[in-house]
């Protein structure tokens, strides 16, 4: 339910909510702490608190920064996976022109159908986080159909045989890329990592309560700014996590590009004989 909210609203709304809640709770905690623990006692030891805060802050800062980098890399990798899948479709389209016309047309029709399934059905489902087997079943069926057709095709010439070999290889790469995409669509930061990030974040913010500043407003400002900085990074992680879901996600442009290129190539092929006298 929370995940649904995070990925069905624009990033700025999610940002406002996350930063608002995290900072608000941190400031409320400071207010309560300030009432319960004598500020004079804390004031005398502010130097010690400040010096020892270094390690808590560095552990947390390095950890959260690395997690952001990792989530960003996963996002970039997912983009590469989608591009690899589209590239293999393009290769198959191109190589199919070396097969007998009947098979070649059938292969292109299968590829077209597969791209339509991916773009019109799978992509919207991925963006909504619906990743049930039923979503991907039509795509797998179309691919199985195409793969079987290719494997059963008996080449009549050496050239066709070479094309078949290359296409089988591309087909296997396509299946790999597809399965990798489906796995990547379900990938996200494990719950335990989120729980540790939140708890360690609470420790990092809670540590600032121990400072004993002359002005409570300054104390509020310090705690608020630290909490806001941490929650800003949370927003970045949320936006980049689930690489195929929500506003910031991998797009289907590569697949649409393959379809457009293939259509243009087919038109050129069909136009050629007419141009000849």
């Amino acid at each position: 339910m929370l995940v649904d909210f995070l990925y069905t609203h624009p990033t700025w709304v999610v940002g406002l909510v996350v930063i608002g809640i995290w900072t608000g709770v941190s400031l409320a905690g400071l207010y309560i702490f300030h009432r319960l623990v004598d500020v004079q006692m804390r004031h005398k030891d502010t130097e010690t608190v400040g010096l020892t805060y270094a390690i808590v802050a560095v552990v947390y800062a390095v950890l959260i920064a690395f997690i952001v980098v990792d989530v960003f890399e996963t996002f970039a990798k997912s983009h590469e996976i989608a591009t690899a899948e589209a590239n293999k479709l393009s290769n198959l389209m191109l190589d199919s022109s070396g097969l007998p016309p009947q098979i070649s047309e059938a292969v292109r029709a299968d590829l077209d159908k597969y791209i339509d399934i991916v773009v019109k059905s799978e992509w919207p489902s991925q963006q909504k986080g619906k990743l049930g087997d039923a979503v991907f079943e039509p795509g797998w069926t179309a691919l199985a159909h195409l793969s079987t057709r290719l494997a059963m095709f008996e080449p009549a010439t050496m050239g066709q045989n070479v094309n078949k070999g290359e296409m089988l290889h591309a087909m296997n790469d396509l299946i790999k890329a597809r399965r990798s995409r489906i796995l990547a669509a379900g990938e996200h930061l494990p719950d335990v990592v989120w729980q540790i990030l939140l708890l360690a974040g609470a420790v990092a913010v809670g540590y600032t309560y121990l400072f004993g500043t002359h002005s409570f407003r300054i104390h509020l400002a310090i705690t608020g700014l630290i909490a806001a900085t941490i929650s800003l990074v949370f927003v970045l992680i949320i936006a980049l996590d689930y690489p195929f879901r929500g506003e910031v996600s991998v797009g289907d442009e590569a697949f649409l590009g393959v379809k457009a290129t293939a259509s243009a190539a087919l038109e050129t092929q069909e136009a050629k004989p007419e141009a000849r006298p």
Partner: protein
Amino acid sequence: MLNHWFYSHSTWEVAAAVCLAVVAIPLLGLWIFHRLVDWHVREENTAMVGLSYALCGGIYAVVLAFVAVGAYEAMDKGATIAGEEANSLGGLAFDSAGLPAALGARLRADVDEYIDIVTRKEWPSQQAYQMQERNYKEGWAQVRRIGLDLANFEPETQGQATVKTEMLHTINELLSARRARLLAANAHLPDAVWQMLIFGLGLVAVYVFLFGPHSYKLHMAVTGLTMLSIGLVFTLIIALDYPFRGDLSVDDDAYLSVKEVSNRAFEPAEAPPAAAHEEKK
């Protein structure tokens, strides 16, 4: 023994136990230290301790965070390896359509059986970290059977020869991925790294003891919170280490998906696509 406990209990139980130990022992140490070392001496030198603590603490913090990230990346890599093995199995099942019908069906049945061995026997063994060779013998035998069946097949047509070449390539990838998975399932953070992390924790704790704040309660709070933040990262490392073991580990979804997809693709009721296409024409 301790490892076995970590990976046979939920992450929350492990977190509670680890954080309790990492916080309670240093607090006890602080209590003893406070009684043994004069507070005035420490109070006079707090600034000096603090400045040097920045270096010691900083190094430890960066190393600790690096180890946590390394464990996280190892887990990611484990999932990638499992995905590659599953992909090779999917490739074999699909390509088998180009072999003579009887051999194709036998090969698909063998691939199915291999997936059953992996998901029903090897995965539970990996999760329990029973990495003795005998637990994986059956899987090796099955994969060898598939390889031998394919290697001994004599193609009668050019098309079959091409399919055989592609399948031999895929089976080699399968063997590599299987071996990589078993190695990854065995891999974990070296004991030396753990020893260094725990020794470093001790050093950091002693460093915190050296501070001389006016309030003992605040000294306890500072020590407790510092240790708690380290304890949380320890928990994260434990949860992510041993990528195929315990509560948080690589799952076998990719294999199950391959089985389901290939079974659906080769349902007996379905007419071969080539033939179906001819009929349409």
